[in-house]
C-alpha cells in the first residue's frame, strides 16, 4: 500500500484545464521531485495533494483511505500531509517558537510544555536554536523558511510537500534551506518537492516526475531521466537547462 495514491486527478481553472488525469503513487520514505516548465501543473498538483485546490475529478488516497470532500476528511488528510511554501507564510505576530508551537497546541491539543518541547526540538533540528524568540521580520528569508519547515515537521506529518521552497530566496541563502531538506531526505522522511534546483533533485531524489501540459510526461530514477530522456519534450527541457548552465 502506498502512502499516498493519486488516481485520475483532473483540475480546471475555468476553461483552463491544468491537470489532465494524473496518476501518482508516493511510497513511504520516497523522495520525489516534480519538474517541468512554468504552467505545467506542478504546483497545482502539489496543492491538490494537500487539499488546497479542490480537484474536479479523481481520487486521493492517504494510507489506504479515500479522502472525501467533507471538512473533517481534509483535516485528517492534512494531519498526514504537511506543506512548506515558496513564500514561507510565517504568522507575523508570533515568534519562531510560537509559530511552530501553535498547531501542535490548538490542533493536537498538546499542553503548552509538550508543544514547546516539540517546537524546540524541531527548531534545533533546522539549526535555529538561537533564533527561537525572534519574530519573522527579524529573520532572513532562509531562516524564515527553516522555521516554516520546523513548523510543518512539528505536526509529525507522514509526507512533506515542498513547493519551490528556495525560489523566493537570495542565492546565498538557498543552500542552508536545501541542506535541511537533504537532511530530512537522509533521515527517511517522505518528500514531494516542486523544484527548479535540478542538481539538488538529481542528488537527493529517488524519483523524478516530469510534468508537461498537465500530464505526467515521463518519470523515473533521476540518472535515467537526465541521461536518457525518452521524449523530445523532456530532452528539450533537460537540454535547455544544460544550455543555461
Amino acid at each position: 500500500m502506498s502512502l499516498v495514491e493519486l488516481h485520475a486527478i483532473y483540475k480546471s481553472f475555468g476553461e483552463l484545464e491544468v491537470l489532465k488525469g494524473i496518476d501518482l503513487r508516493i511510497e513511504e520514505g520516497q523522495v520525489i521531485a516534480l519538474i517541468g516548465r512554468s504552467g505545467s501543473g506542478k504546483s497545482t498538483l502539489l496543492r491538490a495533494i494537500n487539499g488546497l485546490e479542490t480537484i474536479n475529478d479523481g481520487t486521493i488516497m492517504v494510507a489506504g483511505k479515500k479522502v472525501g470532500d467533507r471538512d473533517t476528511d481534509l483535516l485528517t488528510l492534512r494531519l498526514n500531509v504537511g506543506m512548506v511554501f515558496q513564500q514561507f507564510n510565517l504568522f507575523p505576530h508570533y515568534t519562531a517558537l510560537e509559530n511552530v508551537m501553535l498547531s501542535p497546541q490548538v490542533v493536537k491539543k498538546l499542553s503548552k510544555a509538550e508543544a514547546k518541547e516539540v517546537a524546540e526540538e524541531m527548531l534545533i533540528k533546522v539549526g535555529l536554536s538561537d533564533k527561537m524568540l525572534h519574530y519573522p521580520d527579524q529573520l532572513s528569508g532562509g531562516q524564515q523558511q527553516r522555521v516554516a519547515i520546523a513548523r510543518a515537521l512539528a505536526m509529525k506529518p507522514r509526507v512533506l510537500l515542498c513547493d519551490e521552497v528556495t525560489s523566493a530566496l537570495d542565492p546565498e541563502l538557498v543552500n542552508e534551506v536545501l541542506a535541511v531538506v537533504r537532511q530530512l531526505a537522509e533521515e527517511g522522511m517522505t518528500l514531494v518537492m516542486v523544484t527548479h534546483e535540478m542538481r539538488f533533485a538529481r542528488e537527493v531524489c529517488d524519483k523524478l516526475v516530469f510534468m508537461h501540459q498537465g500530464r505526467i510526461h515521463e518519470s523515473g530514477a533521476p540518472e535515467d531521466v537526465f541521461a536518457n530522456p525518452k521524449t523530445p519534450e523532456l530532452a528539450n527541457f533537460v537540454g535547455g537547462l544544460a544550455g543555461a548552465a
Partner: protein
Amino acid sequence: MAYKFDFGAIVPHWELLLNGVVLTTELTVVGSVIGVSLGVLGAWARASRAPVISQIVGVYVELIRNTPFLVQLFFIFFGLPALGVKLTEFQAAVLAMVINLGAYSTEIIRAGILAIPQGQIEAAQSLAMNRVQIFRYVVILPALKKIWPALSSQIVIVMLGSSVCSQIAAEELTFAANYIQAMNFRAFEVYFIVTGVYLVMSILLRWMLKVFGNFLFERRNHV
C-alpha cells in the same frame, strides 16, 4: 456688545454636567465593546463569504450606513414599542449605537481581514487548523492591527454621535447642556463648556485606544 458673559451661571449645574459625562462614557464603553464585537462577527461572515449569512450581514451594513443615526434611534425608541419592544432611553441609545457601530466596524474590520495574505491562511490550513482556529489564532489579531487607527476613529465618532441620544431624553452630556440652557438661557456659556468637555473626552478616548492597541499588538512572548 450688549451680552454679558456669565460662566458662573453654569457652576450650580456642575452635577448635571458630570452625570452627563458619566452617561456619555457609559454609552460609549458599552456601545463600543458590543458594537466592535458585532463588527468582528459581521466581518468574519462577510469575508468568509458564507452563503446566506454573508448576504444578510451585507443588507444590514448597507441599511445602517445609508440611513441617518437619528432616524435609527427614533425607530428603536419610538417605533419598536408598536411591536411590543419597549426600551428605556439608555437601552435604546445603547442598542442604536451598537447597531450603528456594528455596521461601520464590520466594513472596517473586513478590510483588515482581506488584507491578510492568502498564503498565511493556506499555511494554517496545511497545519490542519479548522476555520475557527484559523480566524482566532492567525487572522483576527493582525487584521485588527492593520485597521486599528480607522476603528479608533469610528469609535470616537460614535462617542460624539451619542449626543444625538439627547433627542430621546437619554440624559447624556448634550441632554444636560440643553437642560441647563433651558433653565438659565446661558446657551453660549453652556455649549462652550460642553464643546470643551467633548474635545477633552475625544482626545482622552483616542489616547486610551492607542494605549490599548499598543497593549493588544505588543510583541510579547506568549510562552
